[in-house]
């Protein structure tokens, strides 16, 4: 198909070729100026399995994903429903929800850094009024990951909302009217009509949410660098660190292969399971 040609060429050049190269790299040692790469078989993978930071990153990332995906999607749906209803200043509210998407993460990270600052940070100032100040959100390994999660949810929810909003607007009003006539309460309409009709959108958003959950690490680079004590270490951030901090490209490639495998697995499950059950109108 001629229509597909440009896309295929671009994807080969900037996705497939580099991906395959990455997989190949993972079986070689890192080339250094003085020592060229040599084939090492699975050595990189053995190193990885023994690497406590890797294990920590995987665990953190699972928590990160398990919280972010449902939270941001749920919030996004709630927001879309809210701004689809007739509320005062709807334009402003939509804009408000969407703002995080437009804000550059570099700058945002710094602003959040202020919110999280102990004692004089905004959150602590508020909590201080209730005598619960003095929290070092980012400096405490028990809270740091959660602090990061909050930012991610904040950043993603508005983005996903746009898609839910678009889908909501496409639902024929007569369907909801029919449901209403049939005595469905708002919650029943939501559960039995709106949500099923939003399924294709939900699938799409969930794919994106999974990807974001493994991809969004800008604020970690800017805020915690995986610390304290790797408590905010995520897989992609670790890859970034290994590749561009440690210059161990082979090991980074190995980690990347794992990341790709995880994502591919999730994606296949999502599509295989969901695409079949979701009709397209």
């Amino acid at each position: 198909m001629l229509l597909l040609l440009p896309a295929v060429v671009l994807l080969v050049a900037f996705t497939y070729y580099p991906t395959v190269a990455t997989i190949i790299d993972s079986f070689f040692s890192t080339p250094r100026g003085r020592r060229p790469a040599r084939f090492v078989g699975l050595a990189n993978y053995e190193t990885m399995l023994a690497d406590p930071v890797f294990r920590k990153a995987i665990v953190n990332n699972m928590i990160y994903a398990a919280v972010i995906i449902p939270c941001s999607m749920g919030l996004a749906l709630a927001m879309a429903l809210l701004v689809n209803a007739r509320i005062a200043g709807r334009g402003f509210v939509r804009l408000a929800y969407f703002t995080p998407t437009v804000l550059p993460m570099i700058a945002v990270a710094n602003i959040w850094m202020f919110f999280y600052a102990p004692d004089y940070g905004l959150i602590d100032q508020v909590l201080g009024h209730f005598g619960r100040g003095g929290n070092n959100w980012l400096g405490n390994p028990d809270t740091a990951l959660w602090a990061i999660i909050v930012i991610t949810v904040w950043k993603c929810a508005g983005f996903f909302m746009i898609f839910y909003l678009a889908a909501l607007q496409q639902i024929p009003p007569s369907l909801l009217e029919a449901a209403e006539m049939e005595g469905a309460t708002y919650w029943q309409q939501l559960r039995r009509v709106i949500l099923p009709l939003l399924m294709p959108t939900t699938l799409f958003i969930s794919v994106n949410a999974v990807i974001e959950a493994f991809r969004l690490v800008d604020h970690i680079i800017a805020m915690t660098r995986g610390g304290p004590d790797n408590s905010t270490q995520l897989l992609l951030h670790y890859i970034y660190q290994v590749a561009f901090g440690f210059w161990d490209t082979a090991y980074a490639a190995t980690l990347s292969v794992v990341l790709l495998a995880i994502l591919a697995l999730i994606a296949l499950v999502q599509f295989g399971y969901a695409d079949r059950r979701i009709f397209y109108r």
Partner: protein
Amino acid sequence: MSVDRRSATTRLAINVVAWALALLWVLPLLYAVWTAIHPPLYAARFDLFAPLTLDNFVRVWNAAPFDRYFLNTIGLVVFVVIAQFVVCTMAAYAFAVYPFRGSEWLFMLFLIQLMVMPEVLLVRNYSTIASLGVMDTMLAIALPYLASAFGIFLFRQAFKSVPKELDEAARMEGAGPIQVLLRVYVPLARPTYLAYGLVMVAYHWNNFLWPLIVTNSVSTRPITVGLGIFSTVEQGIDWPTITAATLVSIGPLLVAFLLFQRQFVQSFMRSGIR
């Protein structure tokens, strides 16, 4: 819009929740505005009578050729979004309307791009760009993003939701495949184009690492890279400067969205298929 038939209390509750959430969500932005228009002393102190100042903006504006950066960014974003529209529309149309043997597989293969982080491929993409000889051009920033699986997926979905009879009616009327695409599918998918365009504008307006790597000069550098100068934490955070710079760099985008959002919503309604 259908009438809101809910009771007054429900409506009030909806309003309250929506607004509370909205305020929570813009808090960082409000904070940015606060610090940007006050002297550094008030960065963490909320005093209603704090003196106002535009110094932070003046300083930021003078610190770098922001006007040039704006032009670069606008040019880049317009180019990327239009090129993406073209590439993704073509591919999505092929997938949605002319499925062929194995097209489902090819589509899955395309979706891989959703999952492959550009960050991971940075080094390799850098060499590709270098070997194409387009280093330090707008094309270099744009190329890896042009074939967006995200866009293809979205457009395919939008095209699939176009009622089949409309396609058929257009074909009966003698429209060829390209005409059907341009005159039926694309107009009907307008909300999707708007939404996707908006998201992509936001994404590329804020993209940092890749442009940083492939641009060298003031004449190609986008605004985020310019903004990067102020955002470093190495020497301690200078909040007023950072927030002022942030506002300068996202200001046009926010204003555009504010103006755009009316149009955005209206177009949803207009194209609403009964």
